């Protein structure tokens, strides 16, 4: 089975997101970075598929500069077979999907695994956009995955509001992965040492037939801002029963809810 995994580097989920005083840019230099957590489930799913399907190979796709190389190094330490770095630093998710499609369309893998959302832009764009660009089906935020008896499709499950869907999806397909799909393994020492010997293939967007216009941002950012600050709240005093009664009164009369 030919397996591809798309990885993105993001600020750590506990990192402070600083905004310039004019609100025109984010100040992320020096912030701790990680592979986007949902992408880790995608990588683990790839490793499991390779283990259970003899003759399979895992190709990593990462778009960016040093950030992409960091993702690739992590994947090499987990024994990915090959990697392509597309040198398009700072492009948005739509441009990234176009880059990944340009690389993958010449030889579409059986499965392309991604995280359900990148935890920086939280856009939920990349997997569906990539599937559309490659004209393959996709499944979003899968929480279980197996190969169908035919060997030409996957069975997966996906949580939606109040229910769970069981999906059959033909290969080739893009699958975006949710928490609960698996437990990502850590690289071994041997993996980390081997990673140093492995090299990604670097491509520029131009080499892939993409123009500047293809990489233009989909939306024009006008401002960054911190989340709205709330004015300090009220601490309701008293013994449990009294405090409870007072809180209910405040919610009804002051907040006018309930």
């Amino acid at each position, binding site marked *: 089975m030919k397996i591809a995994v798309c990885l993105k580097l993001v600020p750590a989920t506990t990192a402070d*997101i600083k905004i310039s005083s004019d609100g025109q840019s984010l100040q992320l230099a020096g912030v701790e970075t990680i592979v986007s957590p949902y992408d880790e489930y995608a990588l683990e799913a790839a490793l499991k598929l390779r283990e259970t399907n003899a003759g399979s190979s895992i190709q990593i796709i990462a778009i960016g500069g040093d950030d992409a190389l960091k993702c690739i190094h992590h994947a090499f330490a987990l024994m990915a077979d090959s990697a392509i770095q597309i040198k398009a630093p700072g492009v948005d998710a739509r441009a990234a999907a176009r880059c990944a499609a340009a690389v993958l369309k010449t030889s579409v893998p059986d499965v392309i695994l991604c995280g359900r959302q990148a935890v920086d832009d939280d856009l939920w764009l990349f997997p569906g956009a990539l599937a559309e660009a490659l004209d393959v089906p996709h499944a979003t935020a899968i929480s279980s995955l197996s190969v169908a008896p035919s060997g030409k499709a996957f069975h997966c499950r996906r949580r939606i509001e109040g229910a769970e869907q069981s*999906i059959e999806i033909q290969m080739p397909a893009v699958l975006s992965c949710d928490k609960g799909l698996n437990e990502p393994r850590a690289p071994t020492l041997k993996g980390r040492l081997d990673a140093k010997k492995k090299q990604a293939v670097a491509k520029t967007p131009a080499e892939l037939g993409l123009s500047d216009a293809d990489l233009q941002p989909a*939306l*024009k950012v006008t401002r*960054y801002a*911190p989340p709205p600050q709330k004015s300090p709240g009220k601490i309701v005093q008293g013994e449990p029963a009294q405090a*409870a*009664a007072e809180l209910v009164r405040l919610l009804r009369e002051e907040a006018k809810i309930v």
Partner: protein
Amino acid sequence: MPNEILVIVEHADGKPKRTAFELLSVAVTLAAGGEVHAMMLGPGASAAARGLGEWGAHFVHTAEAGLENYTSLRWTRAIADFAAARKPAAILMAAGSLARDIASRVAMRLGGSLASDCVELALGGAGLKLTRPIYAGRARVTAEAASGTLLVATLRPNAFTVVKPAMSAARIVVPLMVAEKPEDLRAVVLEVAKAGGTRPELAEASIVVSGGRSLGSAENFKIVYDLADALGAAPGASRAAVDAGYAPHSMQVGQTGKTVNPVLYIACGISGAIQHLAGMRTSKYIVAINKDPNAPILKLADYAIVGDLFQVVPALTEEFKRALRG
């Protein structure tokens, strides 16, 4: 300058989902005198269309044939074919599992832009202007879609005010034919297993009552469920409580769980780690019950009780029951 706006209205149990009215209110503003078209897909769409009443849509396009079982490709085709012909300025969807599945595909097929989970959306100087959270809500970005380009926007539930139109539009229900192409069946839903139970869905609830690891056990979560049931609320849990096995993952609120935006969020024994706040910080009113006066969540709470949750939460349940009995 008037715009045409397409709204994807989801429906369940024979009526439009609550989010539909928020979407239509926004659509009317964005249309600036132009036409608002609603689209309802899947079994029961025509019947549910009646529930739209006089809310803002000039036309409601309903399609049921060929849409008996959900396939992302056919839903994408239904929306994209319609939009390709009519060229609306924007397609609005509620931020939820349907939008997360197909909004990206629709935007890509039509060469448009996607803005997910918008908390603001309005007419701007040069086109449509939106604000959405990024970095799990640690920042917000305001951006514009250039006029003449298509914006696919998914809107966070409860982030927009529902405004009943002053004059009812002459609402016309139009049956829509959706092309049934075999390639749409490359991904099909074989089965839908409903979660069961009568409690509201967490991501859609108006009131959420969540418990943290301080509850100490799955059995103790009963006090959270009792308060939730007294309020007709959805019960939730912090990641720590879920990881400890006190509540199922489906109840998890936070960065790696669900994002909720209820009118009232009651956090019982939750300290308020960044990752939890990411999932609930835009709730209209936040109530925190915690014995630690320095718990981070207290900084975000509109009202807080610093005390023992095992005494306070049951007392609250009693008080709400008393108050709601009238």
